[in-house]
């Protein structure tokens, strides 16, 4: 518990600092809004077309790959901590899992999931 308390205090303090900074900025800075100032910036040209258009599917593909590999790399953390004390069997088992992971990466590669065009 004593290791978590400083963290919580840090979170609270940094949030408070951030809010105070923004409030100070509100007080000190000018507030002279004009309609053209509030337009989205598009290199000086008038805004053309809707902004929130559908995005390319590859972004979702990357997100999927990330979820897969990140969750699997999380499995390694507890294993890595106690690897020194584990017997050979546990080490070999995890290496087999690692090979599966490499195989999965090779499969995604072959399927073209890693191409960005």
């Amino acid at each position, binding site marked *: 518990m004593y*290791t978590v308390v400083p963290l919580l205090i840090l979170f609270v303090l940094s949030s408070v600092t951030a809010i105070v900074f923004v409030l100070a900025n509100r007080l000190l800075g000018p507030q002279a809004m004009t309609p053209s100032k509030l337009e*989205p910036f598009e290199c000086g040209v008038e805004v053309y077309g809707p902004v*929130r258009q559908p995005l390319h599917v590859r972004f979702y593909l990357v997100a999927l790959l990330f979820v897969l590999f990140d969750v699997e790399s999380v499995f390694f953390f507890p294993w890595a901590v106690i690897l020194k004390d584990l017997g050979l069997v546990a080490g070999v088992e995890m290496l087999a899992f690692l090979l599966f992971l490499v195989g999965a990466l090779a499969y995604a590669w072959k399927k073209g999931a890693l191409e960005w065009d």
Partner: protein
Amino acid sequence: MEIFLQEGLVLLKAALWAVALSLVMALVAGFLTYLERKVAGHMQARLGPNRVGPYGLLQFVADGVKLFLKEDLIPSDADAPLFRFGPYLVFVGSFAVFAVLPFGERIVATDLNIGLFYVLAITSIETVGLLMAGWASNNKWALLGAMRSAAQSISYEIPVGVSFLIPIVLAGSMSLQGIIHAQAGGFGLLGWNVFHNPFSLAAFFVGCTAMVAEINRTPFDLPEAESELVAGYNTEYSGMRFAFFFLAEYANIFVISMIAAAIFLGGWQLPSPFKDILPFGLVGSFVLLAKAAVLVFIVLWLRWTLPRVRVDQLMEVCWKYLTPMALVCLMGTAVWMWAFPGRIFFGLFGTA
């Protein structure tokens, strides 16, 4: 009564640490904005900032004051709550990492036993903040920059995570202090994780490359590639909210350098005769900060040496090179530990 006193002391200590760390972050990030311009200047045969204070050292103070006096603008079509909230997340996310950074043998705010895991987890919050900011801006550049930034940060988190595993395997601990303790021996040099075996040497370079990419620094700064996206996710921001992105970006450079120095380059380890010259292991702190400073300089240097990569190259480097390399390094280190147990410096020496 005694318990209350003890808890009060813990709270007081934590509060003091929080204040100290916020000062450290503000100073470090501010100084790095100055240093970046100074390094950039000298690499391009000009002087860089030299007007405010001696050698322009107070430039970042002047910049900070200027940002306070700017108009806090929220575009009319923006999603105001998200637009306001995004910068806070980025700021808090980058600040929270400072809590586990070891500044010396006995100088650390809180030595979490899941230290490195916490670093990985908390830095991901920044990605959420960037995505929020970019989407809420209602600006094409900001949206594209945010999507690129998210895709890049989450992709590069995998090589970073896997290369973090190598020091964890070697030390048998996720705590940053624990990892530094495990790098003792070999005159404070040969015991470094980077010298432990060929795979950990490779993992150091894989990890550093991936970390530079994860914080969106050049040559991987596609989210704010100014020649194509104006400024990426912070195009619409001004004043303090813009400053938060800026502050977080520069604080991140320091954070990754400190972490790389701690988990791969021996941290504050020193040969024992030098350890106790100054109290609190301060010599070690200077050594650690010097290592971090060298890495910071390399990160700044990269920006003026390497051209920006293309998006497809960026993804290719991550998924087709760094990730398999990191996985091979992990396998190799595990096998090496089994083949040469308790030995350091490429398996040549017994534990010193």
